[in-house]
Each structure stands twice: as structure tokens, then as C-alpha cells.
């Protein structure tokens, strides 16, 4: 994690607390208005806004040194390659991977999971083998395994969640059996905010010889991640939720596992030699990066990671937990509002409905008030079925949100009730 000391961090105020107003000045978009109202951006779970340093890093790459990587004999290509590979090192440091060679760049966490399903899954899974997921997975961590189920006949087992939205370790242990071949699990529910006890889960899975893939799309944004401490076998996340550009994702994999995996897609850069009759493949991570990779997106992600490292993931976590606590307190007082996900161990995500109001109507009124939320099934239909609702409104908080954003949300919900009920 970040080694920046508190005393040298310009975003920490005199009392060493998180200076959110100063942080907000790093995000130009936050000063705009929407429908004539100040923007209150509470859709960070879908995608977060970008600090100026990320935008500038992308612009600088295109304006100063852009070229293709790994192949040019000229200065610009070398310069781009250096920056692209330096981004890989930044990602490795950020999640404490043993080496940058454990880091594969993809287009998104969705592609990261699809890559594992299409390579490791097809090679090592056969009919009757079981993959354990949970009820609160994003579709990105359900559908790739479902496709494998259709293709190879594997079985999918789902760990249920409690009414509070807690992951049930005991139910997970009950599902483990001699046929279990993989655990594919979210670190943090994109709907409930529930944090899954990954470290303990991995210990249990490994004691039975079962590898674990972690979907860190939401988790990596809210707290520090150490893949070696977790001992997970795969860890995927996406750049655009981590204040970086869209179009860039990461897949971390343990060395021996990556080396055992066949290529994902075929093309340039992922090969050693190609003849008309024979192809030999490159080593990881390049084996899994066919064609021109997301060069500038990786550079932008590197800038985003350095930005949150400067703030400190622990400071971000503490700040967001304060906002979460306040949001929980304020939303609980709204008559008719029901919160989904009340785990004591959760990230700053609040999903809710207001009885008597359609979530779509509510989100539309919030939008008119300048408040950006997400509405619907949140790419988690099984979880909606679990809670017996057709959709929810989700307010997902980021490092630049304030208590007053919660006040604006509550005010707008009351206004919506007045207009619609």
C-alpha cells in the first residue's frame, strides 16, 4: 500500500483528518451543475469521476509520447512501452503482487473473469465439477461460469446471504465437497456493500485444495488490498471505478497458475514464434494480451492509483466509513425507506427502496435534483430475487463525497415522496 506519510499528504488537514473539500478540487466535473442544481455524484459503484492528474496523464501520453508498445524500434514506442510497463509495476505494488509479471491488463474486470473461465476453466474443469459463487455476485461473475456450465456441464453452487446481506461462511463450508474445483467470489457486493471475509474463505478453500478467484471490482476501491496476504489465486478489478479511465481492467494471477493456462485470444504480442504450421506462445502476462493493449488507459490507471496512494487507502476507508455511518443514520429516519444490506462489515454503498414509490420514479426525481444514483437490478438479478424486489436505488459513495451529499439525497427523497405519493 501507499507509503506516503500523513504529515506530507497535502490532502490531510491540520487535524490529520481527510480534507474532502481539498480533494474535491482535484475533480473538475464535481463543480458542474445538472438540471440547474449542483451535481451530487452518488453513482461511484457504476463508475467514478476522474481527478485532474488522470486526465492530464492521458492527455500527456497522447500529446507527448504515444505510440504502440513492445514492437517499435523508435523513441516514441520505447517511451510508451516504458510507461505501459511502469503502469504494470504500479498495479503490482498497489495490490502487493509478488511481481509485475503477475499482472495482466484486460479491458475490464468482466474480461478478467471471462479470461479465467475461457482459459483456466476450459482446461481444468469438466462435467460434474463444481464452482462455488454467492447469491450476491454481479452478472460479470455469474454469466461466464454459466456459459461454461452450458459448454462443459460444470455445476454452479451459490452461497446464500442472510437477510442483513451477510455472507455465510458456514453455508460456504457446507457447499465445499470433493467435486469443488473453484471458488469465484466478490470481495464486496455492488448492491449491498457487504464485504466478504476473503482471507478466511481462502484459508478454508485452500485447506481443501480449491483455488479462489476474487472479483475485486468494488472492493479495491474502498480499502487496501494485499493479494499475498489474502493468498487468493486470482484477483480482478477494473480501472474506471478506481478513478481511472474506462477500458482498462486487471487480472492478477499466481505465477504457477498463469503459466499453466493456455492463451485467451490469439494475435500479435502473445506469441514467441509463428510459422505457417506452428505457433509457440509468449510467457505470462504477455500470453494473455493479444493485439495492441489499452496503452493509454493503463497509463491513466497508473496515475489514478498513485493519486489514491497519495491520499492513503486507510484515510479513504475511514472517510467513506464516516459517510456510510451518517447515510445509514439519515436514511433510516426517512419514513417508508428500506435499506438492503445492513452488515456491520460493509463498504460505502447504500441500496434502498421507498415503499409506495417505484425506484425508477424516485431515481428520476433525484436526477432532477442533480443527484446521480443508479436504479434497477444492478446487474445482480439473483440478488433482487433473493430480496423479492424488482429493483433498488443505489447511492454509492466515493472519496469525494461529503455528509452534505447525504443531506441533499435525503432532501430529494422527501421531495420525491411529496411529488409522487
Amino acid at each position, binding site marked *: 500500500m501507499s507509503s506516503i506519510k500523513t504529515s506530507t499528504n497535502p490532502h490531510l488537514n491540520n487535524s490529520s483528518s481527510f480534507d474532502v473539500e481539498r480533494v474535491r478540487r482535484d475533480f473538475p466535473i464535481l463543480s458542474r451543475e445538472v438540471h*440547474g442544481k449542483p451535481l451530487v455524484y452518488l453513482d461511484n459503484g457504476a463508475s467514478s469521476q476522474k481527478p485532474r492528474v488522470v486526465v492530464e496523464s492521458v492527455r500527456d501520453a497522447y500529446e507527448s509520447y504515444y505510440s504502440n508498445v513492445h514492437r517499435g524500434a523508435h523513441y516514441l514506442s520505447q517511451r510508451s512501452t516504458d510507461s505501459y510497463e511502469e503502469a504494470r509495476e504500479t498495479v503490482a505494488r498497489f495490490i502487493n503482487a509478488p511481481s509485475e509479471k503477475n499482472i495482466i491488463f484486460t479491458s475490464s474486470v468482466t474480461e478478467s473473469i471471462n479470461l479465467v473461465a475461457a482459459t483456466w476453466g476450459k482446461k481444468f474443469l469438466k462435467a460434474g465439477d463444481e464452482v462455488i459463487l454467492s447469491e450476491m455476485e454481479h452478472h460479470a461473475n455469474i454469466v461466464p461460469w454459466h456459459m461454461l456450465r452450458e459448454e462443459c456441464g460444470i455445476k454452479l453452487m451459490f452461497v446464500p446471504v442472510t437477510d442483513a446481506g451477510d455472507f455465510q461462511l458456514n453455508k460456504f463450508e457446507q457447499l465445499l465437497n470433493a467435486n469443488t474445483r473453484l471458488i469465484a467470489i466478490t470481495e464486496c457486493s455492488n448492491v449491498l456493500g457487504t464485504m466478504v471475509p476473503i482471507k478466511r474463505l481462502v484459508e478454508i478453500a485452500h485447506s481443501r485444495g480449491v483455488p479462489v478467484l476474487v472479483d475485486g471490482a468494488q472492493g479495491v476501491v474502498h480499502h487496501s488490498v494485499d493479494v499475498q496476504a489474502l493468498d487468493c489465486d486470482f484477483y480482478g478489478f477494473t480501472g474506471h471505478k478506481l478513478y481511472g479511465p474506462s477500458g482498462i481492467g486487471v487480472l492478477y494471477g499466481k505465477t504457477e497458475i498463469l503459466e499453466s493456462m493456455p492463451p485467451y485470444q490469439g494475435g500479435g504480442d502473445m506469441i514467441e514464434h509463428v510459422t505457417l504450421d506452428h505457433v509457440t506462445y509468449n510467457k505470462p502476462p504477455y500470453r494473455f494480451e493479444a493485439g495492441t493493449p489499452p496503452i493509454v488507459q493503463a497509463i491513466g490507471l497508473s496515475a489514478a492509483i498513485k493519486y489514491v496512494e497519495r491520499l492513503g487507502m486507510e484515510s479513504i476507508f475511514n472517510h467513506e466509513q464516516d459517510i456510510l455511518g451518517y447515510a445509514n443514520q439519515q436514511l433510516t429516519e426517512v419514513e417508508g425507506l428500506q435499506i438492503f444490506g445492513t452488515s456491520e462489515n460493509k463498504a460505502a454503498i447504500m441500496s434502498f427502496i421507498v415503499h409506495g414509490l*417505484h425506484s425508477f*420514479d424516485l431515481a428520476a426525481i433525484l436526477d432532477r435534483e442533480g443527484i446521480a444514483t443508479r436504479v434497477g437490478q444492478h446487474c445482480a438479478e439473483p440478488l433482487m430475487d433473493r430480496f423479492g424486489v424488482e429493483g433498488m436505488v443505489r447511492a454509492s459513495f466515493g472519496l469525494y463525497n461529503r455528509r452534505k451529499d447525504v443531506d441533499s439525497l435525503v432532501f430529494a427523497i422527501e421531495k420525491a415522496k411529496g411529488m409522487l405519493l
Partner: protein
Amino acid sequence: MNASFELMRYDEFVEALEIIDDEDMRFEYIIDVGKKTRDDDFSNDWKTEGNLMHGCMSKVWIVDQMQKDRHFFKGFSDAIIVRGLVSMMTESFSGLTARELNTLTEEHVRKLNLGALTTQRQIGMMAMLEHMKLLSRSDRVIHVDKI
């Protein structure tokens, strides 16, 4: 846009929304239309999977009642705002023959000037018009003697 037939309530909606020059008020107008569309205006028997218009964030049901050769649409949604939009669309474009319906274009939707709506909802309304056209040519048309 130069339809040679009469659009029952279309002109009324266009005029009302032209007079309202405030985006928020335009939005409230749509909500009012939605609120006025009462649950018992749309039979529960019509709220079937077959009558659902797919691809919407909320549930939208539309039925096509045909009297002689003219199509009269009724619609409903579980969300008030969408219910308002569905009502405006079904009431605007009812009373036409299938041939007349087919002459309607996206411009007719644009002219409603629902500026308060997002692009996504505008696209949804254009899809709704196409859905109504398809419905009028399908075997799901309900033939009635009287509207």
C-alpha cells in the same frame, strides 16, 4: 410530419408542453398525466407477459383495441413517470389505421418536446412508437365493436 389525418390528443399535448417553458414543470406535467391514468383504466387481465414491452427499466404494458379498421391503444406502467409517457403516446397515436400509423416518424415524438427527459427515455419513446406499429400488424390486436 404533415399527416393528413387527425391525431386525437397529440396536438393538445404538444401545445401544453410548448406553453410550459420550465423543465421541472414539464416534468411535473408528465407526472400529473401519469397520476391521472388510473389503475382501473387498464384491466389487470391485460397485465400479461405477452403485453409487456420489453427493454424498459419499468414494466410497460400496451394493448391495441381495433374498432373497424382503426387502432386504439391503451398502456400502463408500474412507474408513474413512465405511465405518463405511455399515456401520452397511446392517447396521441390512437384512432389511426395501420397505414396511417406507419406514416408516423420519430419526428412526431420529438415534436412533443419532452425536453425534461433524458436521451435514454426519448429513445424509449421512439421504441414505444415502433412497438405500437408492430402491435397493429400483429395477431395480438383485440377486435372490439365499441371503444
